[in-house]
């Protein structure tokens, strides 16, 4: 048992700050109130430091590409095949990579780990806790989303081959084609003989049955609209990632309730797809009621800089509370894990981070990171 005394608690369930104590038992938050006393629990006086739910980066490739290794440590993209819905990130992640430790040190306790951006269908994304002794222990929600990429990166990674897709038309076509074939395959129910067994269609099943969302990485308006169209044709739950030009078509996103994973904002934006990038996008989209998350897309920027991206959004007009939600409860909702993480509530996982100041400021340090009730970092 662990008792955190005298916290200034940003619960993320409401805008109200609570001054009080948190009791943790069995990896869960047992009680939040004023003046809890428990002689058995290890007690830490937080002296009014800011307490937040563990931060969530809703789109990263943590551990799929290793620090300081280059090609041998890069398992982001299975470039030989453009459509690999059967691939699972957990088969490529090195949990000993330094970035996991840096995530924990900076209060990021969960992240959706996704394949890279150079294939059309990259594979299956899973939610991981950032601390643990084995991949199984850390794997929090298997196959939480399917990663699909649109636009220039896919096109250009294919330029050395003579095969589809060489254009945006080709990209849309091969996705539609696979989904159509997948739909036919599912209609046959379980009457699949070994000869017809198709691992790709099998992997698309839960997506086509709307059990799992599809993350479309798209920057330009044309690619965002392609994602929306394909989503509607096949009745998919879609999430838009990067969504650089999303602010130009706010209404299209809002009326369909499409969640967005925005960022990162620290990179150079000379790439043609990013020329219209605006750091005001999180402000614009969240104000219009769109469920907004801010992400690092690690390794685009290292995962430890998640809060700095949030700070940039606030500088450019995003509501402060909304910015904090965009790295806690909003990603939990988007990833379908808000019953367990994303806020400080009784019964939820004890994923908690304590800061010595405003979490979105550059110089704020992490004092304590707790994952599943265990102290995993002390600053």
């Amino acid at each position, binding site marked *: 048992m662990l008792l955190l005394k005298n916290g200034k608690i940003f619960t993320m369930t409401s805008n109200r700050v609570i001054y009080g104590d948190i009791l943790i038992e069995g990896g869960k938050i047992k009680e939040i109130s004023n003046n809890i006393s428990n002689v058995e629990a290890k007690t830490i006086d937080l002296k009014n430091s800011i307490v937040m739910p563990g931060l969530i980066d809703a789109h990263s490739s943590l551990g799929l*590409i290793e*620090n*300081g*290794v*280059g090609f041998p440590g890069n398992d982001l993209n299975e470039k030989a095949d453009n459509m690999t819905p059967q691939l699972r990130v957990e088969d490529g992640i090195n949990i000993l990579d*330094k*970035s996991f430790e840096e995530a924990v040190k900076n209060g990021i306790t969960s992240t959706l780990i996704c394949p890279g951006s150079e294939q059309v269908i990259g594979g299956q994304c899973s939610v991981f806790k950032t601390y643990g002794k084995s991949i199984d222990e850390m794997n929090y929600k298997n196959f939480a989303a399917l990663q699909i990429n649109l636009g220039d990166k896919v096109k*250009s990674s294919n330029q050395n081959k003579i095969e589809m897709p060489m254009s945006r038309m080709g990209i849309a076509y091969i996705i539609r084609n696979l989904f159509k074939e997948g739909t036919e395959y599912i209609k046959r129910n379980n009457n699949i003989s070994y000869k017809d067994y198709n691992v790709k269609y099998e992997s698309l099943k839960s997506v086509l049955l709307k059990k799992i969302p599809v993350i479309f990485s798209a920057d330009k308006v044309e690619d965002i609209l392609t994602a929306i169209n394909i989503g509607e044709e096949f009745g998919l739950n879609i999430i838009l990632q990067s969504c650089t030009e999303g602010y130009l078509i706010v209404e299209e996103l809002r009326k369909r309730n499409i969640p967005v994973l925005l960022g990162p904002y*620290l*990179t*150079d*934006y*000379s*790439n*043609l797809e990013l020329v219209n990038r605006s750091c005001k996008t999180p402000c614009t989209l969240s104000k219009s009621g769109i469920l907004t998350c801010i992400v690092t897309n*690690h*390794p*685009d*920027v*290292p995962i430890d*800089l998640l809060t*700095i991206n949030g*700070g*940039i959004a*606030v*500088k450019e007009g995003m509501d402060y509370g909304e910015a904090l939600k965009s790295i806690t409860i909003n990603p939990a909702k988007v990833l379908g894990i808000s019953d367990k993480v994303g806020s400080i509530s009784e019964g939820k996982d004890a994923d908690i981070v304590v800061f010595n100041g405003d979490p*979105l*400021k*550059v*110089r*704020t*340090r992490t004092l304590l990171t707790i994952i599943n009730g265990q102290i995993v970092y002390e600053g």
Partner: protein
Amino acid sequence: MILFKNCSIADVKNGRFIDRDILIEGEKIKEVSNNIDILDENIEIIDIKNNKVFPGFIDGHSHIGMWTLNYNGNDANECIQPMTPSLRAIDGLNPQDRAFESAYKAGITTIMICPGSGNVIGGQAAIIKSCGKTIEEKLMKFPAALKVALGENPKNVYSELKMSPSSRMSTASLLREKFEKAKLYLEEKEQGKLVEYDMDLEAIIPVMKKEIPLKIHSHRSDDTITGINIAKEFGLKATLDHCTEGYLIIDKLKEVNFPIMVGPLFSFRTKDEVKNATYENPIELIRNGLNISVVSDHPFSNCEYLPIYVGLLVKYGMDYFDAIKTITINPAMALGIDNRVGSIESGKDGDLVIFDGDPLEISTKTLLTMINGRIVYRANK
């Protein structure tokens, strides 16, 4: 003339804020003192209301305007032969790249642009100001350094082309050979012997004469030492750029006391030679009294966030004014331009930037940027 009243000036040399007025005349700072008042209708008076005024920030290692992440956007590397000293960074520069606007809005006024690290000798670097539509308007000093690269990059480029250098030994050997030739070329020229004009060797002469430094790209400590040794053998000036493993060879660095340009700090460790990159490296080096600058290496980290990288160093333990020095007076001294920029003093260039708070914090906004005595950016009131 422009008169800034009630400034809280960052006195970077002494590590404190002082309350003064600043008078700008033409392109220069004319006077910095208490209570300057001039009765003249033609003078523009701006009340700074005790906001913080910093010398324009300096980014000592950048490819801004030379290298965008577009298809075909790299004009910083001519990787067809490893020794290209006569190439000039300014010939690859697009002075209207929009990154310049972001840079001066963020307070970065002086930038060293250099060729990339694909070649052993990449070419000649230049120092520019971030304002101005043409290269002539931007240019401050050329040539300003000769770019040299050690370690993985040249070796990777040329081993793929089945050429030398394919090993670190070859990189060092090619450098020594070229410098030896340049030394002899210069001697013969000075003795009045007729020499055949050699564009490449001509480009190395200012380095041999110690007029400009070598700009040595290295990450791994052994590569940094190779660079130091070669510079010493030929008696050259040098800056040690990146110097990612500097903390492992502090005694060696102190012995030669070359200025060090650390960065980029914001990027993922993409290759083996940067695997030991940490925020602690520049902190440890500056504690040891070395001249440390923090650089963006734009586009590898976005130069408009240079002050934020420095803010992170303060988070991890660097003294606040030491951190401010890494983007002001330290790079000015390292680049040999501290007579013109790097601090707010009379006689220096009118390069200053005014913030509504601490520039090392994200939420702080730039109120005004002045370059060469001209206001190039002013926030809407």
